[in-house]
């Protein structure tokens, strides 16, 4: 299995541990990823003000992975959502696709829609399968409660992202369970982390983050688990900022899913970037069998 790896803008500079751990896990699962230094912004942040440009940006990346003859795998859920959205819009609006292609042709690129985009979690779930993951998780977790945070842009709009059932998803919970951890039920599981409004309306953004943290804690979570750099930064660096600004206790802390899985597969913490968290989560390793 081979994918073009789409990292986006945040992971290589601010959430490197996501990349490190994802690569380590994918390597152990014999999934080959190909890098493309020409991949650029996915178009997500500009959609608020200029959808046309957003689609062009997404389409350029899609066209590049088509040129490589590969499906794309995105680690960031916002990137994934943006790429899927653009593909969906162009599929249902051929004239938009033509317009985009006219722009792309200047760089010798063309988007046809013959290759797909998948999120990292989908690849693990659908292409590897829970049973294989369970087999590989030789050093599984025990007695740990994880509040699984789905993240919005992979899950919804479900007709576009085709990720999982938008109201009662199981994909991420099952993946977490495969590591031996217990994925808890908690009311705000499917809610937004608050990141899209950071820098726009900080108090609102932090209110939403705080609510999620309180809710996860109330339902007994030891840790949060995410699979998106924005969510991770929100529950990491922003949580740290909130603790200072709002005078609240820190916790629960958030771990990236490939780290959770990697630890369960017996990969060393450092190889998974466990030392790169703003808020130290290394104590999670004490839950390993």
């Amino acid at each position: 299995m081979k994918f073009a790896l789409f990292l986006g803008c945040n992971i290589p500079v601010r959430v490197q541990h996501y990349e490190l751990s994802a690569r380590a896990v994918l390597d152990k699962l014999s999934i080959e990823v190909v890098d493309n230094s020409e991949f650029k912004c996915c178009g997500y942040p500009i959609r608020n003000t200029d959808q046309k440009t957003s689609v062009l940006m997404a389409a350029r990346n899609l066209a590049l992975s088509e040129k490589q003859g590969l499906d794309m795998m995105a680690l960031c859920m916002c990137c994934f959502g943006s790429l899927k959205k653009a593909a969906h819009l162009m599929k249902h609006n051929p004239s938009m696709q033509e317009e985009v292609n006219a722009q792309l042709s200047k760089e010798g690129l063309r988007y046809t829609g013959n290759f797909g985009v998948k999120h990292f979690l989908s690849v693990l779930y659908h292409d590897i399968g829970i049973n294989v993951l369970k087999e590989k998780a030789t050093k599984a977790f025990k007695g740990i409660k994880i509040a699984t945070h789905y993240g919005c842009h992979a899950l919804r709009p479900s007709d576009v992202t085709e990720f999982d059932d938008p109201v009662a998803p199981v994909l991420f919970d099952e993946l977490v369970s495969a590591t031996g951890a217990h994925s808890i039920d908690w009311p705000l599981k499917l809610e937004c982390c608050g990141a899209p409004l950071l820098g726009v309306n900080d108090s609102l953004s932090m209110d939403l983050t705080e609510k999620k943290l309180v809710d996860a804690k109330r339902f007994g979570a030891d840790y949060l688990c995410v699979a998106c750099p924005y969510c991770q930064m929100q529950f990491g660096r922003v949580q740290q900022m909130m603790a200072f600004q709002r005078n609240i206790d820190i916790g629960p802390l958030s771990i990236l899913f490939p780290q959770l899985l990697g630890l369960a597969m017996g990969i060393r913490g450092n190889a998974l970037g466990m030392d790169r968290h703003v808020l130290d989560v290394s104590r999670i390793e004490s839950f390993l069998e």
Partner: protein
Amino acid sequence: MVYNVVLYVALAVFGVGLMYKISGWFRFSIGIAAQNMTISARIPAVLKGLLVVIFSQKLLTLIRVFVMDVLFQIRILEKDKLRWVMHMLIFAGFIFLLFTHALDKIIITSLFDKYYLKLNPYLFFAGFMVLSGLAIAVYRRFILKVPRLKTKAMDLYVIILLAVIILSGFALEFTKLASFNHYQKIWYVHILTCLTGLAYLPFSKMFHMFTTPASLLANAVMNQNSNPANVMTRRVMELDACTHCGTCSRHCSVAIAYDSIGNKHILPSERMVFLKDYIAHKRMTARGLAAICQGIYLCTNCDRCTVNCPAGINLRDLWFNVREEMIGRGHAVPLMLTPFSFYRGLHQQELDPDQYDNPLNKAQKALAGHFERLNKIEEVIPLTSANREFKKSAGLSLRAGTYAYCFTCENCSTVCPVVGNYENPQQHLDLLPHQIIRSLGFGLLDLAMGSRMLWYCLTCYQCQEHCPQGVKVTDIFYELKNLAVKEADRSIK
């Protein structure tokens, strides 16, 4: 006689130009934290910094960077081999000619006797090196057409100047024996272009032969804890270190947005050109300010420009600081109400808390400001005057047309986490999601576009997912935001 006069004039212009440019590094400021940094504080700070570095282990770093990055230009080699070949040909050829030919009387003849005879073939060889380098430069800019590599007059002048110097030099050597008349004429052309080049050097991109090494060396030994006065001086000096090579724009994550928006300030290399000009007088028109604000805010802070800059310019720091200066000048920047603000939010502790919210509020007002009806809650809205044309199109897509299916069950507003966050949501959001959708149904476009709800929407898609009628609520919000920004753009004079 004439030769001497021209030589000394050229030397004087060069010297004064050099002093003028260098003094600029201390006279000018850019970005936030620009206050309280006088020339009298900045010059001693640089000297002190230099001394500290020279008498520390960092000296080894400087030597390594000088050899690897300045002499062998490894940073260019890693990124683009053709460019490295081009630059090395010009650089090595030029340096060779400078020391063995232009300055021959001073350097070489004092070392060797009869060196002219020995050196002639080498002279030609070095000339060919420079010419081939220039040919590659022309090829890259005009034939290969590297995407988004822009050519400005200043880029062209340098290529022409160097070409004339070398070609006239060749001609001179060939005519040496053949014709004294021609020889003299060509000699004048050759000498005059050389001296023009010398006088023009501090004001041209050729100045980078001093500033780029300075930038590479400074950034190798400076970090976040460096004296802010030195950071400021470096930041200004780096503007001179930029050669407009376009590497940043080629690696920029959002550069392709330039193709669809057409604002050249989206490209980092073009922003550098703007800043070089801006820094001395700090004046610009409202349109110009709007364009630079859009360009500089349309940035995902991916760091690629900084990582790839062959001159080692700390663009990350430059953008962060200049951006604050620009958005603080009072023009509303719609992009501030998008995830492009995430990085600013993440780094808010580095910013003045009193200035942090102002530009955000301004953007908010500019986008909601001219939607009058929203400010007159008590007014009864006559439905008959509704804009029926808008219902048909108004630039909304088919997907957006789904608003017509709304039967006001309010599910969207019920599941919205933003609405749920407030005791009295209307006070914070103006209209709730279902009200925005209903406004569309009535054709009340300004009402639909004017509410803060649109800009405080997380785009989490809960509303859209939960709508029993299949109204694409979040997608409609996106389109309304797009329209509102277009409206606001139109109002800039």
